[in-house]
């Protein structure tokens, strides 16, 4: 029962990005002010710290049809709350390993440390991630079909 990877080119991936308020959200703003473009299908949700991202949010995003989820936070050691991203780092490592263990494509989830000064890095990461998701194709394995086909 393997899911075939159709390479239809007009597939527009939906990517949810959780950005921590102090570093990566500021990095995203800096990418904006320096006019560094990245695909429009990346949508950013602001959270106080990367440690606020609960695995439930990530699974909910996939359930509702997201094709990729990326969590951005401050570089370990610079966290505004001093230890937030350390906890996030451990939790996300275990979550990604569990999703991979369940057979979900590895590239669909990612963690990236972006400081407030790294606007360039933010936009390259988003471009790169969008490309990977585009290659992986639509998320068929971790998807709630009721949310998709329910059209009257």
């Amino acid at each position, binding site marked *: 029962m393997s899911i075939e990877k159709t390479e239809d080119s007009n597939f527009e991936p939906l990517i949810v990005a959780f950005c921590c308020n102090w570093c990566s959200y500021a990095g995203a703003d800096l990418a904006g002010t320096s006019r560094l473009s990245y695909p429009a299908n990346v949508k950013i949700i602001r959270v106080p710290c990367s440690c606020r991202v609960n695995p439930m949010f990530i699974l909910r995003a996939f359930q*509702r049809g997201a094709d990729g989820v990326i969590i951005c936070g401050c570089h370990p050691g610079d966290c505004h709350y001093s230890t937030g991203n350390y906890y996030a780092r451990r939790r996300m490592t275990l979550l990604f390993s569990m999703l991979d263990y369940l057979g979900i494509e590895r590239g669909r989830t990612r963690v990236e440390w972006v400081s407030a000064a790294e606007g360039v890095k933010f936009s390259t990461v988003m471009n790169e991630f969008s490309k990977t998701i585009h290659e992986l194709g639509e998320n068929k394995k971790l998807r*709630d079909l*009721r*949310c998709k086909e*329910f*059209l*009257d």
Partner: protein
Amino acid sequence: MYKISTDHLTELFSSISHDRALYMPIEKNGQVQFDRWMEDKKVRLDALNTVKSPKDLFFPQSENIVAFKIKGKNISIIENRDESEPFVVFGVRACDAASFDILDMVFLQDPVDTYYKARRDNGIVVTLACSEPEETCFCSVFGIDATNPSGDIATWIVDDMLYWESLTEKGERFTETIKDLFESADFLDEEALKSHKEDVEKIIEKLPLHDLSLDGFNSEAMDEKFNSPKWEELSEACIGCGTCTFICPTCQCYDIRDYDTGQGIQRFRCWDSCMYSDFTRMAHGNPRTSQVERFRQRFMHKLIYFPTNNDGVYSCVGCGRCVAKCPVSMNIVKVIKAMGVDENV
């Protein structure tokens, strides 16, 4: 009475599944459950009974009822129930077949549950008599003859021959459509079948639970049983999971819930368990706060409340699933034995 040799069964199955979905006990990932028959599927007619009972085919664990779309203050109703198409369920044991009758007493009673009724009309039940009952079986206690199962069509497997006898008019009509695959059974076969039934009956006599007595469980005993102090001790091990209710072929409680799919609201029905703590929870309190009361409700319903409403028919068919699968091995047999004994003895 027809017969067919067991090595032509695959042929029989493929012809049945030609124009109707065919479900039967099939092993998948090491677990036997009722699944749709395909050529490559591993058929397991020898398994005593499946953990998830065939009730799931008539009263599925979750099914859509209706959907709504909300726009501002207006609501539009969308009927998107899962349409049921004709199907045959093969290999149903006597106890499960009896459980369908008990479910009928609930769902087909006025006001009729149309979801259940549609599936019941579309379904043809082909039962298969047991040949090797296990120690957990006690269907005989509830007057169910394991060697003569009910259902639309009864079948027996003796050595390498399958005997096929339709019991109801629906069964008759169905057998007509596939008559050419069978040969009619002669006198010798009747004899072989009768002796096979006697052997199985002898085994049933030897089952440890066959002499379980149900006297003392009637509507007059409601108060006496309800206020018995034994419930406290019986329920102290119960962890309040839903295993016994979800694998029980006669449990019929369900919950109705709304799910916001983002496009609209999907109202669905799903199995619910009286053992769950939020089963009777209301906005301002819960009549059954502790596990003792919930535990008591389950067995009182099966052994006293249901028979009071349905002239003596118990809501249990002795299939033994809860005896085998309860995580802490507390089940209806222990309750009957503990409660049945007269207080003063």
